[in-house]
Structure formats: C-alpha cells, structure tokens
C-alpha cells in the first residue's frame, strides 16, 4: 500500500506496471472488476424472500448459486497457489492437502467439539497454516520437480492417513449438521476470493512480494542481497495453505459431508494450477481470470452426455495450445501486446525454455 503510483507519472509505479499504457490498462481492469463485484454482491439478493415478495425479478436460481460458489472457490485456491507457485516459483502440486485439512478441521470442530461454524472456520485457517509451516521446513529445501513431487506425496499421504484413522471418521467420512443457505455459502466464498486477491495485491506491493519474486528469479542472488529465503518461502507456503484451507472449511459445511474423496481430490490441485497457468502465474488477475473462465466452462458442460465429452477434449486442446503459445498466460498477453504475433510467440517460447 505504501507504494501507490504517484499521480504525476507512471515512472513512479513501484513494480510490474512499468509503462503508462500498462498503468492505464490496469486502471480499466480495476473499474471492470469493481462493477462486476457490485453486481456479484447485489444481484443474488433478489433471491431473498423479501425481494421476491416485493416483486423483484428472480435473477439467480439454485443452479446459479452452485456454479458461482464453486467458481469463487477455485478463485481462492488458484490465487492461493499463485502465492507459492507463481510468486515464489515453488510449483506446489499438492496444495489440495490444505483444502483437505481445512475441510476436516471444520468437520471435526463442528461435530466432535461442537464449535460454531464461524469459530470452526478459524480452525480451517490456522490448522493448514501450522501444518504448512512445519512440513515446509524440509519440503522447501527441495526445488523444481523434486519439490512438486514431494508436495504431491504429502497430499496423498495425509489423505491416506485420515482415511484410515477412526478419529477422522475413517473411510465413511464425517456428516455435519445441515446449514441450508445458498446465499451464506456464496457470500463466504466470494469473501474468501476477495481476501485472496487483496492479499496478493498487498504482497506484490511490499518487501515480502519483492523478496518472493527475487527468490523465484534467482534464489542465491536473493540470499546474498539479504533475503531470508527460508523464512520467506515458508511464510508464502503457510499463507497459501491458510487461504486454501479457508476454502476447504467453507466447502465442508456447504457440502455437509467430508471424506478422502471429497477433501483430498488431486483434481482440485491440478485444476487450480492450470487456471493460474492459463490466466498468468505471478500476476494478480491471472488466477482469477483462469478460474472464472475454466471453472465456468467445466460447470456449464458437465453432465450433458456427449457434449460433456467433447467439451473435455476441447478443454484439453485449449490448455495445450494456451500453454505452448501463451506460456506467460492470458493476462501477460493482453497486458503486453494487442495481437498474437509470431514475434510474441517466439519470444515467450524462448524465455520459457521450450
């Protein structure tokens, strides 16, 4: 927050926004996001009994709430992954473990210890962050592929342990008391998504963010310039875990039931990484854009027979094309140039080492 661009020139913009044109684009994007946010907050209110009895049109139904809540959930998970994978450059493949720990924290605290759902949500933030802080010490000594595989291993192992201990409900999982409110879970997920974006925004403007990007670009150079790389990496990992856990905690109560398949589904990790990748890793809006577009497509076409199969194939092709030709993501592409020129593709391919 300390480094807001000076009004006199884009010259003072402290980080990635290097040119006045890019600063202008950033401003336009902010206005669009603000308008979208107001609509997202106000429009669902038409579903309340008061609004309906006042004769307002019903703009959202149960299906809309389901899709919107899931989309918001993936914005949280993808933006959270972006903190460790995009900013610090540590490709965590098993972040779903924190979704699972958050989900189980809420399920256990509510059913076993009779905490209120609101209090249990705090547990879904603290427990994953604490676990990430501990496991991060050995895990973050690894780099690149080794770190990716090890983080995936942790996710699988934790899922198996929980599945085999009676304390966690074992294979039959945990059922929770039902809380029936589409509006509540939608607003909670939307709030978590806003929190994730806001945290990314703040991080990118502070010493913490510069330290993380320096680590991503060259860890040994960052260290000799005074960045405490160990502490920074663990802090980013724990922050990422806390946000992912929050999404898991909200999801657990929304879904009423948790077991290994629900809470430790590796697809959640993979989808969220793809969303960040397509949108643009390391950026504020990349994971948001990727999550909204991809999850919306997935939700729209799922469960529609042949069309769903064709859509799956189409998504696969889209991902392949996007990763090859836009390796720095859609946000970078839109922010940098106006057209998909050969020079752009060549430059990005070279810089991504393909």
């Amino acid at each position: 927050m300390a480094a807001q661009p000076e009004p006199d020139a884009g010259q003072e913009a402290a980080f990635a926004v290097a040119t006045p044109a890019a600063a202008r684009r950033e401003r336009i994007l902010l206005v669009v996001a603000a308008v979208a946010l107001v609509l997202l907050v106000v429009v669902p209110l038409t579903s309340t009994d008061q609004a309906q009895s006042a004769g307002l049109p019903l703009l959202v139904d149960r299906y809309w709430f389901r899709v919107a809540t899931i989309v918001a959930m993936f914005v949280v998970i993808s933006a959270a992954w972006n903190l460790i994978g995009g900013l610090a450059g540590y490709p965590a493949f098993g972040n779903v473990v924190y979704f699972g720990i958050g989900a189980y924290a809420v399920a256990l605290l509510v059913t076993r210890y009779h905490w209120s759902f609101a209090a249990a949500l705090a547990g879904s933030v603290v427990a994953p962050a604490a676990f990430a802080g501990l496991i991060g010490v050995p895990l973050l000594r690894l780099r690149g592929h080794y770190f990716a595989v090890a983080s995936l291993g942790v996710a699988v192992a934790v899922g198996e342990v929980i599945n085999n201990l009676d304390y966690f409900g074992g294979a039959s999982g945990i059922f929770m008391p039902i809380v029936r409110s589409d509006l509540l879970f939608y607003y909670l997920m939307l709030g978590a998504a806003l929190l994730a974006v806001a945290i990314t925004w703040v991080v990118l403007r502070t010493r913490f963010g510069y330290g993380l990007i320096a680590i991503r670009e060259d860890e040994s150079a960052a260290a000799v310039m005074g960045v405490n790389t160990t502490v920074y990496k663990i802090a980013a990992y724990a922050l990422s875990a806390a946000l992912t856990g929050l999404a898991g905690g909200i999801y657990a109560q929304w879904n009423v039931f948790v077991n290994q398949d629900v809470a430790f589904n590796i697809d959640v990790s993979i989808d969220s990484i793809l969303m960040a990748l397509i949108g643009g890793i390391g950026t504020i809006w990349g994971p948001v854009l990727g999550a909204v577009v991809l999850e919306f497509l997935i939700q729209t076409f799922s469960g529609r027979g042949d069309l769903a199969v064709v859509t799956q194939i189409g998504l696969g092709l889209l991902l392949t094309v996007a990763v090859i030709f836009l390796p720095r993501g859609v946000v970078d592409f839109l922010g940098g140039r106006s057209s998909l020129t050969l020079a752009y593709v060549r430059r990005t391919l070279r810089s991504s080492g393909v």
Partner: protein
Amino acid sequence: MSEPGEVLLSLREVTRRFGGVAALDGVSFDVGRNEILGVIGPNGAGKTTLLNCVSGVHRLDGGDILLDGRSLRGLPPHRVARLGVGRTFQIVKPFGSMTVRENAAVGALFGSSEARLPTRRAFAHADEVLALVGLAPKRMLPVASLTVPDRKRLEVARALCTKPRLLLLDEVMAGLNAVEVDEALEMVRAVHASGVTIVLIEHVMRVILGVCQRVVVLHLGRHLAEGRPADVLRDSRVVEAYLGEKYASRYAGG
C-alpha cells in the same frame, strides 16, 4: 593499514574442500578499512570460492572469517548481507522478470541493516545508485534488454543498494572493452570514495594496477604472495604461477 584497529575483514586459515580437493587451503590475509584489495591468480586458484566463503554461500571447512572482529563462520548469506557485505556474481544473476530499477530496489529493500528501506525510499535510493553507475536512463527497462556491460553495472548497483561496508566484486570488468573498463574504473573509484571497502577479483591487470592499493595472489588454493601491485606482478613466483616455470625463467632472463 595493518594496525589492528584498522582491519575490517580478516581471513584466518580459511579452508574449503570440494570432495578431496582443497579449493582453499589455509588462506590468511587482512583487508584494511577503506582499502581496495585485489585478489588475483590463475584459473582454479580459488578466487571465487574465497568470495563465496566470505559471503556465506559456502560453509568453511576450517579457519575463520572476521568482519570488524565478529566471526562470519556458519552464518547464512542473508545474515552476512545484513552485517554489511555486498557482492556481485561473476556470471551475472539479474532478476529476469523485473525492471532495472526493481532489481536495484531489491538491494535497498533488503541488504545491510543500514538499508532495509520502506518501498518508496528503497526505489529512491535505487535511482541514486543507478545514476552513480550510469544506468539512470535505462532504469525502466526490463533487464532482458540490457547489454553485457550494463548487466555488470546492474550487478554492482544491486550490491551497492544494500549499503555495504564491504563490497566484493567478482570479475566485473571481464568482457568489457577498453573504454568500458575506464568507465568501470571510474565507477569503482567513486564507490570507494563514498567510504566502501572493496575486494575485487580481476584478470585485467590494468584494473589491478589502476585502482588496487594492495594485491593478494592465490595459487591452487594457497596464499602465494601479497603486496603492492607493481611489486607483486614482478615477483618470480607469481609469474611462474601464471606462465609456468619454463616461460618464467625466459621472462626473468629477457
């Protein structure tokens, strides 16, 4: 220069092994406060290993390194940086996705305990240092667009932004042409004049003769010679280390 109170950096029997090879074998010397000390030696002499040991990148296998009397032994690189040791890398390591200015600002955001500025002041300090090294006009460019000499300047600028007491320069003049070397020498003198002690590794003898007050010669991980640059370069052991015995005798004879 060698009075006890005047010593800033003191290396005592510094040893570092890689497997069975002793890259540094009991090297000892002192660096006086506000001195410019050159470290020379043939390829494989252990010069870069020496800088890595001082900056905390390598752990010591033996001996000790004292900065202002405080042992650096076992400290991780960021702690050494915090105590006021800045360094450059022979193979430059810019933060590729950042602009020139952001690269320098990282040094001011972190660095020594005199640095660690809040964001806005860090960028202001980065601008001052970039002006000193002659990169002010290019400060908003991405580092990818910089030439080799400019990347070396940026490497120095980043280290300077950490507000070091001691600056370790690893072959910052290599690959520069004559005019660029002159500019770089001016830069080193300016940095030195601002009160920074400098240890520099160089192969370019003009640099050694031009700015160094004293030179330490390393050969196969050992301290071979030490003294004023002109004297050391005439030392037959030094010539022999560089050229081999046969050529050394011819050089001495002719």
